[in-house]
Structure formats: structure tokens, C-alpha cells
């Protein structure tokens, strides 16, 4: 498993080669990218096997990056359960998505560039999960953002895509400011960037509690940005402007999960700073709630999925806030499969519908694209928490964690959100695939096998990974694996039943509304008009940001700009110059041309010299 570093390295290499020489290669170099990620996946296998055999955290490699004066920044890669799992998720999903993309992106302009950027993203993501060091983590963190930026903006000719890419980068960047400041604060306190060193120092109580809390919250700010937590979630739905496979990989399965990963990775800090953990929980809950409610009313296929992602990420954060890393990571895993599946399914639908994304124009696609419909259904059910699909297990774990770790209010709200999750999944599923066939869907057809194959594989995954939670035979279960044996599988029957019931109710309600039309959506909208409006307008968050940017940031900037030009430049600089010049023009009129004036000046000058000499200069005697 010393070879783990090869996984990101291969993909970086692929990025370099494909971006520079892609256009001269067959298939624009796409095969290189796929080979690279396949290599990554193989390495995952090797590493996993090694790790299971050895059961010890190890450094893959470690080297000095920068050494200056007293400080030294080294970096390396660490192999521990968390990184192994993430390595697996990332390489597996990425592999499938890239294969899928071969079909989905076929014929696109900049086909090679797409794969290059993909490789860049994957490489960065793999570095991120393997990093043993906060600086390397930050580096990868930023590069992941870059990959996301490039891929969201892949169709940069569309203003909306360019705008979305920018928004994503800027918004996450705001979180990153916090992350970097947090890292630097920790460095100041502990003198190292090594995570192990930092955690050790924290556990030993070398860091003042106040500073630690702030540093931790700031680190969480980074996670908020990447994982689209309230109030920095606004970029994620817009990010759907990118190609759908990108949404599947980055904005569902991997990058957005990085925040969750970060909190999990830095969990010793959160354990030492309960206030910060509370913040995580509250933010997670709010995010989950907002995401779920907005998902209920969106009409864009991908946006519904996006808000669903937001909601689920909030859930994971909630679990982390409740103190359970295994639950959160397990949900991350389950969600990765399910959501990637859903997105790829959505992509398949769009592929068939000529890039139509409005769900109101869809319907009855089940018959046209059976594989897609089936796999999509599995994904949806999984996320809704219907047993025995993976989502059920993970959600159950999370609820249990909330029950254990936080006050009952959190649990109640979480259960409500579970209901909503099921409801919007049902809405999506039924509207798109069931019911009457819409006119636009007349000519839809099933996607090629290069696309459906990943769907099937993912569906299988989404269906079965839940069982990883169970302790079977020699396998000690996911929780124990990730915590090295501290967290076994538990079930609280009452809670499980409640959750399942709520999920089923939600689904049932959805069936009633969208298939049976038992409840008129129009009527509901009429009754709760303001709620609907609020939700459709995304709680006016985008408006608020827009307002803040237009009215505060840009106004401030133009104020500074104008200040610089008018006050500093025109008044300060030019003003001084002008004054000097004017005084020159004034004094010049002393030179009157009259001889007697000149003589007078001379006489006065001589007299002044004499008088000054006589009277002013201090003289002895």
C-alpha cells in the first residue's frame, strides 16, 4: 500500500498528457483518463487488501515540500480506514462516470478537455482523501474546486454555465478562507501541519480552548463551502449547469462529500471543541431541512436532485455534529452510490429527451427506457430510506446517532426531513417515469449500453452496500472498520420503525399526489401560496446574495475605485502636481519685463541678505 500515492499521480499525469496532447490522440485521449482512474481503482483494491491484512495506519510516502528557516512543510499520504473508503468511493464512482461519459459526451466539442479536467478532478480528490497533512489537504481541496470550476463551466458558451462556475468557485472560496485561517491558527498553536501532530497536540490540551473552537469552526467553514451547507449552499443547484456526469461525480458523490470527509478527518478537533460540534449539528439540520423542502417544489430534474444532495449532506453533517463519524461516512458511501446513480439516470433521461430537464414535460418514461427507470427507482427508494436498500441502513444509523448525541428536538426535525425526503423522491420518480406519457417524451429511447452499464453497476451498489453495516462472520461491520473497532452495529427498533414508516408515508403521499392525483397540487399551492413562493424562490437566499453583492460588495468596490481615482489620484496626486504647476505660473508674473522691477528685486534682495545677517543669525558679541 506504499503505492497509494500512484493513484493521484496517475491521474495528474493523465491530466497533463490529455490536456496538452489530447487532440493528437485517438479518442482525444479519453482512454488515458479512463485507464488512469482504472489504475486508481485497482490500487484501491491493492490498498484495501493490504490494509485488511495489516490493520495499521501507514504513510504511503512523506517528503519535504518546502523548508524555510525554522519551519518545514512536509507532506505525505496516509492510509487509514477513512482514506481507504474514500479512495474506494472516489475511484469507483469516477470510473463508472467516466465510462458513462464516453457515451454521454460523445460528439461534444472539447471532448478531450472534458476528460482531462475529469482526470484533474479525480487526481485532486484522491490527493485530498489521502492527505496526511493540512496543507496538502488544502492544496487538494483547492484543486478539487478548480476541477469543479472547469467542469461546471465546461459549456462556457452558455452564460448560465459561466455564471454557475464562477459562483461555485467564489462561494466555496469563501469557505476556504475560513479553512485556511483555521489551518494557520492551528499551525500557530501547534507548530505543525501534520494532522497527527495537530490532533495529538489538541488531545494533549496544548491548544487554548477559545482558539481551538474558533479554528475548528473555521475549518468547518471550509466544509460548509464545499459541502454546500447553509448558507453557502447556493452554488450547488446552479452547478447543475455542468454536464450531468459531472454532477453525478462531483456534485453528488465526491467533491461535495469532501466537507463531510474533512469534518470526519478532523474529528478529533470537533471532539475537543463541543461548541464547534454543536455548530456543525445546527448547520447540518438547517441545511437538511432547507434542502428537502426546496427539493419538493423544484421542477428541474437535476435541481431536485441537487437540493436532495444538499439535504443529505446536511444530514451527514447533522450526524457528525451528533458525534458519529461512522454514520456520516456510511451515509456518504450510500449516498454516493445512490445519488451518482440518480444523476446518471437523469443524464440518461436528458440524453433521451434532448437535454430537456423540466420534469413537468416528462412522464411515462418507464416504458421507453426500462433500464434507466428501474435503476432510477432503486436509487430513489434507497435515498428515501426504504429497506433494505443502502439508504435505509445509513439513514437509520444517522438517526440513531442523533438520538444518542443530541437533544430530542433534533431528532423530531430529522424525522420530518425523512418524510420530506421520501416525498420529493416519490414526486420525482412518479412524475418522470410513471403516469401518462408526455408529448415531449414520445421519441425518447433507451441510452446506449456504455451508459446503462454504469447505471446497472451503481444500482447494484446502491442496493447492497447497506449490508456492509452488518457484522457478518469475520467482517466486523462498517462502523468498527472505520473506527478501528469502537463502533459496532446497533439498532434502535423503535426509531427504525418510525423512520421506515415515515418514509413509506412519504412515498405513499407522493403516490397519492402525483399518480393518483388524489390531492391537487394546484390546490395545495393555493392554500400554501406563500410557502410555495418562498420555496420556489429558494428562501430568497440567492436574492439576498445578489443584493449583497450588488449593493454592498460592488458598491464598495466602485467606491474604492472612485476614491482611488478621484481622491487619491485626482486630488492627491494630480492636485499636488497641479498646485506646484500653478504656483509656477503665478510666480512667473513676478518677471514683469520691467527693468526697474528687476532692480528693485535686487536691491531688496541685497538689503534682505544684510538685514537677515545682521538681525537673525545669532552672533557672538
Amino acid at each position, binding site marked *: 500500500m506504499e503505492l497509494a500515492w500512484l493513484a493521484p499521480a496517475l491521474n495528474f499525469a493523465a491530466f497533463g498528457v490529455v490536456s496538452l496532447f489530447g487532440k493528437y490522440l485517438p479518442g482525444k485521449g479519453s482512454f488515458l483518463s479512463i485507464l488512469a482512474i482504472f489504475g486508481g481503482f485497482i490500487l484501491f483494491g491493492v490498498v484495501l487488501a493490504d490494509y485488511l491484512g495489516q490493520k495499521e495506519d501507514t504513510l504511503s510516502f512523506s517528503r519535504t515540500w518546502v523548508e524555510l528557516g525554522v519551519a518545514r512543510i512536509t507532506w505525505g499520504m496516509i492510509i487509514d480506514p477513512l482514506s481507504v473508503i474514500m479512495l474506494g468511493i472516489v475511484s469507483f464512482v469516477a470510473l463508472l462516470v467516466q465510462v458513462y461519459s464516453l457515451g454521454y459526451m460523445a460528439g461534444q466539442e472539447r471532448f478531450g478537455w472534458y476528460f482531462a479536467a475529469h482526470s484533474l478532478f479525480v487526481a485532486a480528490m484522491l490527493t485530498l482523501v489521502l492527505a496526511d497533512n493540512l496543507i496538502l489537504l488544502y492544496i487538494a481541496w483547492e484543486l478539487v474546486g478548480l476541477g469543479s470550476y472547469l467542469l461546471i463551466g465546461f459549456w462556457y458558451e452558455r452564460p448560465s454555465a459561466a455564471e454557475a462556475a464562477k459562483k461555485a468557485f467564489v462561494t466555496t472560496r469563501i469557505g476556504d478562507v475560513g479553512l485556511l485561517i483555521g489551518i494557520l491558527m492551528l499551525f500557530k498553536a501547534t507548530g505543525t501541519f501534520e494532522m497527527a501532530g495537530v490532533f495529538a497536540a489538541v488531545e494533549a490540551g496544548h491548544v487554548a480552548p477559545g482558539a481551538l473552537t474558533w479554528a475548528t469552526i473555521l475549518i468547518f467553514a471550509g466544509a460548509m463551502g464545499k459541502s454546500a451547507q447553509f448558507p453557502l449552499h447556493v452554488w450547488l443547484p446552479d452547478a447543475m449547469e455542468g454536464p450531468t456526469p459531472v454532477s453525478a461525480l462531483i456534485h453528488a458523490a465526491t467533491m461535495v462529500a469532501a466537507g463531510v470527509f474533512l469534518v470526519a478527518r478532523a474529528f478529533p478537533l470537533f471532539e475537543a471543541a463541543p461548541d464547534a460540534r454543536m455548530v456543525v449539528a445546527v448547520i447540518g439540520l438547517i441545511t437538511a431541512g432547507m434542502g428537502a423542502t426546496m427539493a419538493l417544489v423544484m421542477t428541474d430534474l437535476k435541481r431536485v436532485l441537487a437540493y436532495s444532495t444538499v439535504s443529505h449532506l446536511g444530514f451527514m453533517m447533522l450526524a457528525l455534529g451528533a458525534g458519529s463519524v461512522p454514520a456520516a461516512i456510511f451515509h456518504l458511501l450510500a449516498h454516493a452510490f445512490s445519488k451518482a446513480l440518480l444523476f446518471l439516470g437523469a443524464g440518461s433521461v436528458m440524453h433521451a429527451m434532448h437535454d430537456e430537464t423540466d420534469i413537468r414535460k416528462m412522464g411515462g418514461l418507464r416504458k421507453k427506457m426500462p433500464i434507466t427507470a428501474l435503476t432510477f427507482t432503486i436509487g430513489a427508494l434507497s435515498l428515501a430510506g426504504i429497506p433494505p436498500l443502502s439508504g435505509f441502513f445509513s439513514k437509520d444509523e444517522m438517526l440513531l446517532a442523533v438520538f444518542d448525541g443530541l437533544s430530542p428536538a433534533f431528532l423530531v426535525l430529522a424525522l420530518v426531513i425523512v418524510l420530506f425526503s421520501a416525498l420529493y423522491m416519490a414526486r420525482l420518480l412518479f412524475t418522470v417515469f410513471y403516469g401518462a406519457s408526455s408529448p415531449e417524451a414520445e421519441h425518447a429511447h433507451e441510452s446506449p449500453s456504455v451508459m446503462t452499464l454504469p447505471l446497472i453497476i451503481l444500482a447494484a451498489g446502491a442496493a447492497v452496500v447497506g449490508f456492509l453495516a452488518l457484522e457478518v462472520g469475520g467482517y466486523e461491520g462498517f462502523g468498527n472498520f472505520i473506527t478501528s473497532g469502537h463502533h459496532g452495529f446497533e439498532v434502535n427498533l423503535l426509531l427504525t420503525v418510525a423512520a421506515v414508516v415515515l418514509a413509506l408515508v412519504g412515498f405513499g403521499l407522493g403516490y397519492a399526489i402525483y399518480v393518483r392525483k388524489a390531492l391537487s397540487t394546484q390546490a395545495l399551492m393555493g392554500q400554501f401560496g406563500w410557502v410555495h413562493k418562498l420555496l420556489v424562490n429558494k428562501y430568497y437566499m440567492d436574492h439576498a446574495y445578489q443584493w449583497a453583492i450588488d449593493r454592498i460588495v460592488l458598491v464598495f468596490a466602485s467606491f474604492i475605485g472612485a476614491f482611488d481615482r478621484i481622491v487619491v489620484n485626482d486630488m492627491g496626486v494630480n492636485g499636488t502636481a497641479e498646485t506646484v504647476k500653478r504656483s509656477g505660473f503665478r510666480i512667473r508674473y513676478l518677471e514683469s519685463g520691467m527693468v526697474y522691477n528687476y532692480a528693485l*528685486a535686487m536691491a531688496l534682495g541685497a538689503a534682505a541678505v*544684510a538685514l537677515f*545677517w545682521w538681525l537673525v543669525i545669532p552672533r*557672538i*558679541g
Partner: protein
Amino acid sequence: MENLTANLYLLWPEFLLAGLAFVVLTADFFLPAERKNYLALVSILGLAALIIFTTAFLLNRNAALYGGLILIDRFSLLFKVTFLGLGILMVWSSADFVKRYLSHPGEYYAMVLFSILGMVVMASAGELLTAYIGLELLSFSLYVLVSHAREDLKSNEAGTKYILLGAFASALLLYGISMVYGVVVQVGIPAPTTFEAIATYVARVNSLPVSFLVGMALIIAGLGFKVAAVPFHMWTPDVYEGAPLPVTAYLAVGSKVAAFALILRLFAQAFLPAIEEWQTIIAILAAATMVLGNLVALAQRNIKRLLAYSSIGQVGYLLMGIAALSASASNALILHLVGYGVTNLAAFVAVIAFYNATGKDEVADFAGLADRNPFIAMALTVSLFSLAGLPIFAGFITKFYLFLAAAQADMLWLTGIAVFASLISLYYYLIVIRQMYVEEAQVKTPLSLSWVTGGLLGLLTLGTVLIGVYPKPLVDVIQTATKAILP
């Protein structure tokens, strides 16, 4: 009286110079019109020969003739050579002007030679009256030269202003001399108007009497007029503008260098012991001169007036050297004088070349010069940059040295003002440069440049750069000169 005339031979260079002037003057009567340009050649060759002769003859001689009236030393030698060289340049730069406008060039060249004689006397004078006579000789020649364009109203006006104010200034100067004489003579020092006697007096009394101060103030006024120090400068722009261009160049360089040679010797050999008393005064004059000169230059539209004010500004820097008087300051002052001389001449010759080709002398007329004659533009740019004190030109090192000397005399505040003033100067130099390089010319025809003027311009430009790049030989020579007046 045997001992008085014994070493009269040491004045051979002066006699020969006077002789040369007479030759040129009289030869004019005999030469046919088309041969008159030989006079320039004769003058130049004569001066060149004199330079060689003077250098060889006086190199290792030191003497004080007539009880200190005339001093033969390295200081005077350096300036003699400088003035003779200046004479060559002056004659050279006038060649085109003379050829075009004058029917009796002999008078003109003779005046130039006489004025050089005056300068030489000034630089070697060790006594107030002798210095005064030398000064007047120079002034008279200049009055004539300034009025030489007889039918030009501006020249008439300039001549009138110059001679009236010049006479007024010499009255002030003389009155000052008389008062200093009156004070020094009372303590019974022999030959009381020699610099040596004054120095003895100044060193002896612990507080200068008021009448001495008044006398000195008047001397400063008289000499200040000559070098155009504020507030005695006001004639400068008018006279510079009115005078024929080569004469303006000569005024700006020759009379100033000569006056500074005199001032330097006077202050170093006569007034130095009382430096505490006059330092501040001179420093204030210097500050006023450089600030005012450069400020008003900002407002000028005529290149001659602009250069006039710029040269007033330069005088301010030079006065710093007097205010900070020390061996180092003297070195710096002389170096700056030489550097300034070469640079300013280069600037003027460039303007002359332009004027000869176009007959115009407004700054705006220089538009597009870089296209019409890149060489003139380049030379003018180089000299302006040098005047502004930018490397690799002479002005940089000379100014650096000068300011350094002021700083060494604990007058950093003055250095600060000087630095500010040179910043202002850069502004108006840039305006000229901008005209030449950036603005489009109204008339785009290329300008011709006679090889005579062109050669001179090239020489001066080269000199500007050479001094800027490797001043060591020059500084070495100057140091020996300084040693003569400030042992």
C-alpha cells in the same frame, strides 16, 4: 619693484589670448567676405594651441603675482583650460549663426576672445579689484554680444536690460568692495583687498562688524547677479531670450562658470573662516534659487526662457556647494560646473541646430523632432536628462556629488529641497521631450543639420555620457585644483 615684475612671464597665456583677439579683430578688415569664415578657424586653432601651451606651461607652477593680485595655481589653470575650451565650443557653435547673419565676424569672435580673457582674469584673480576688472571685461563683451543682432528688437531690449542692470549690479558690487576694504584696512593688514588679507581679517576677529556684513551682502548681490541667483536673477530669462542663440548658450555656461570660479575662490580663500556666519544665507539663497528657478520654468513656453530658468535652478544647486564649502564641496562644485557646462552647451547647441533649420524657438515647435531629425532630438533628450540628473549622464554623478557634499556639511534639509527641485525640473524637461517624441509634427520635412553643428553636438553629447560613466579622471584633476584653494 624688481620682484613685482620678475615673473610676469607667467602671464604669457593671457597676453597671447589678448593677442589672438587683436589678430582676429584686425584680420577681419583685410579678409575678403568669402574668406571670413577662416576667422572662426583661426580662433579655434589659436585657442586649441593656447590650451596646449597653457597646460604645458603652467602645469607645475604656483605663484602669486603682484602681491596676490593674480594667482597662478592649479585652480586657475583648470579654469583657464576650461574657459579656453569653452571658447572653442562657443566659436564652433556660433559658426552657423555668424555665417548667416554677420558681415564682420572678426568683431564677434574678438568679443568672444576678450570675454574669455575676462574669465581667465576672474578665475586667477586673488584680489577684489582685479576680479572686478576681469568681471567687467567679461560683462562688457557680453553686453556687446547680446546686442549683436542689431536690428532685432528683442536683442536691443535684451542688451539694454542687461547693461542697465549689469551696471547697477556692478555699482552694488563696488560699494560692497569699498565697505569690505574699509573694514579690513582698519586693522592694518597690508594689501587689504586681497583675498588673503580678508581671510586673515576674518580669522582674526571673532565677530564680523555690521559694515563688513553689509559689504559682503552687496558683494553677494553683485556676484549673485552674475550667476543669476534669486533674487538677482530676473534679468536672466529676458536677456537669454533676446540674445542671439549662441550668445545665450555662452551666457548660460561661460559667464556662470567664470562667476562661480570667482565666487568659489573668493569664498574659499577670503571668507572661509567665517563660514558659520554666511553659510545659512547662502543656503537660503540656494534654496530660493533652485525652487523658484525650477517652478517658473514649469510655466515657460519658449525653449530659451525654459533653459534660462532651468539654468537658474542649476545655480541653486551650485550655490549649495558654496554653502557647504569644504574640499569635498569644492570638488563637487567644480565637477558640477564642468558637467553642467558640457550638458547645457549640448542642450543649447541642439536648440541652435533646431533654430538654424527652422527659425523657431517655442517649445511647441519641437513637436515631432524625433521624426524630423532624430539626432538632434536624441542629443537634446540626453542633455535634458542629464540636467535632470539621471544616469548614465554627467548630471547624475555631478549632482550626486554636490548633494553629497551638502549632506556632509549637515545640510540635509537643503539636499531635500534640492531633490524636490530637481523633481520639478524633470517635469518640464519631460514636456520638451514629449514634444519631440510623442507629438506629431505640423511640418514633417526632415531638418538639415550642418556637419559643423552636428559634429559639435555629437562631441558634447559624448562628453555628457563620458563624464557620467567615468568621471574619475576629471575628478582627479579637479581635486588638484581644489587643493590649490583649500589646502
